[in-house]
């Protein structure tokens, strides 16, 4: 699971109102090299919750020098875009789980794939 995806996911357990962002408990994380595409990164930035991205990168120990605040005029700032690219697309959680911050319910991640299915009694 990439952090781009994590940034867009929320807990959908019934009754939960503060389900975002999901906490990440990773037992295996990989960093892959993915071709840098500044246009795609620029397009995704407005859709992100910046604080949640930084928090998630921090949780995985892969924040490096990602700034706590969004930089102004980022479209032309290739250095900044490269940092965002690495965190969004190159860091992958392979094994672990996502945890609802309110209910504690865990959603397992196996082979990089999260399982977001709820049980019969949670829907």
């Amino acid at each position, binding site marked *: 699971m*990439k952090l781009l*995806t994590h940034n*867009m996911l929320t807990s*959908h357990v019934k009754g939960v109102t503060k389900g975002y962002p999901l906490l990440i408990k990773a037992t295996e994380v990989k960093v892959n090299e993915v071709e840098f595409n500044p246009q795609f990164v620029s*397009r995704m930035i407005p859709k992100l919750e910046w604080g949640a991205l930084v928090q998630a990168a921090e949780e995985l120990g892969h924040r490096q020098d990602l700034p706590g605040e969004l930089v102004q005029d980022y479209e032309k700032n290739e250095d900044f875009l490269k940092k965002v690219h690495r965190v969004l697309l190159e860091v992958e959680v392979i094994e672990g789980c996502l945890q609802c911050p309110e209910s504690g319910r865990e959603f397992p991640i196996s082979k990089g794939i999260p399982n*977001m*299915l709820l049980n*019969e009694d949670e*829907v």
Partner: protein
Amino acid sequence: MAAFSSRSCLQYLLHLAQDNLDFRLPEIKALLALRGKPFRPCENFREKSPFWCLDGLSEEDVHSIMARSVCAKSAFELWGHGQTHSELRTSLLNFPSEIMSPFMHKDSTYRINVYTFNKTLLFADRIKRIDALEYLPFEGRVSLKNPQHIFCLLEDYGTDPNNIPEDPNYIYFGRWIADGQRDLIRSHSVKNRHFIGNTSMDAGLSFIMANHARVKQDDLVFDPFVGTGSLLVACSHFGAYVCGTDIDYNTIHGKGRSSRKNQKWRGPDENIRANLRQYGAQKMYVDVMVSDASKPAWRDAALFDAIVTDPPYGIREATRRTGSHKDIAKPAEGVFEESHVPVSQAYHLSDIFTDLLNFSAHHLVMGGRLVYWLPVYRPEYCEEMVPLHPCLQLISNCEQTLSSHTSRRLITMEKIKEPEEFDSLAHLSDPRFSAYQGHNAFREKYFSGLNKKSTKENNKSDVSGD
């Protein structure tokens, strides 16, 4: 014949393939829209004809369309046309020579092709046609192997194979600009794909869907019923980053029984990521997840540039969603297996579309498109049955016949308005959904036509490996 005063008055001729006829106009329109250009057909436009003449385009526009279109075979800069060879000649002699001359000077090489639609021509007759064009000021040298410029004489003998006229109905002559992407149908054929399922979308249609959705470079595209990822393969080919979800754990993980004839179980390289890697598009892979489309886990924001999907019809793959059944025993306390698939209940077809349209209204960017297949029981179909939503505008509705009593329709919708609180409930009282209500109504009608025995409900998945 109007005189051309500048290059901008040039017309372009598209030669289209005669299959998926309904799907062609929405595809070309969508591709033109990506260039910010309207669809402006010349006079005497006939949608069912293989030849379309378009106005108001630049050569670059035509190259862009042909770089994406799976419906168009070739495109030409139109130099002349007419109902007879005599009319063609007049038309060609009226065409400005300053536009022709860069392609005909003495140091260039060229070739003339003759194409006849709905008629086979003897080789000798082809040569006669080419020789008859000697009134054109060609100064260059003919090269059959690698000409710099290719010209084409196209003759239209109508669309009735049982009634081929002696003389063509219409004739065109033009300079070849580009071919379309029909080769993708072969190169991306599901037959050669690493990972397939019972209902993997065939390559041609998956690219048409990506075009109807106006997928473009650097988009983020989502498929909520992703299956084996055929639609993601097509969208990634056009430069989009892709993600998907499916309720079936085994399909997402690439496990379980194979859909191939002589293979029992899926191998290690059979999963969606591997499919993208097969075509060199692995960098477009974002994520896939096991998830129930009726209970999405996405936060409420406009995340996706397009949603392209083929929801289950309940025929070859089951329609399912999570939820309790009174009679099913619950798993033992404290036991939660990683691969546990929560008990599923039948997902009423009407709910699939309700949820899909609502999901799209909330999660598409403004102007983003939803493209999906709607199964249809033909004897009862009427246009009012197509689901609508206050935030989505219906763009096109193209039918693909599956049998005498069933078909599916490719529906394209575009987000035109942000959802307000009560929009998601507006349609519930709408009578148009009654056709899809009732447990698996579409399935019942489909099967009652085939085999009277199998009207009893079948809750087992057709794809085993659960």
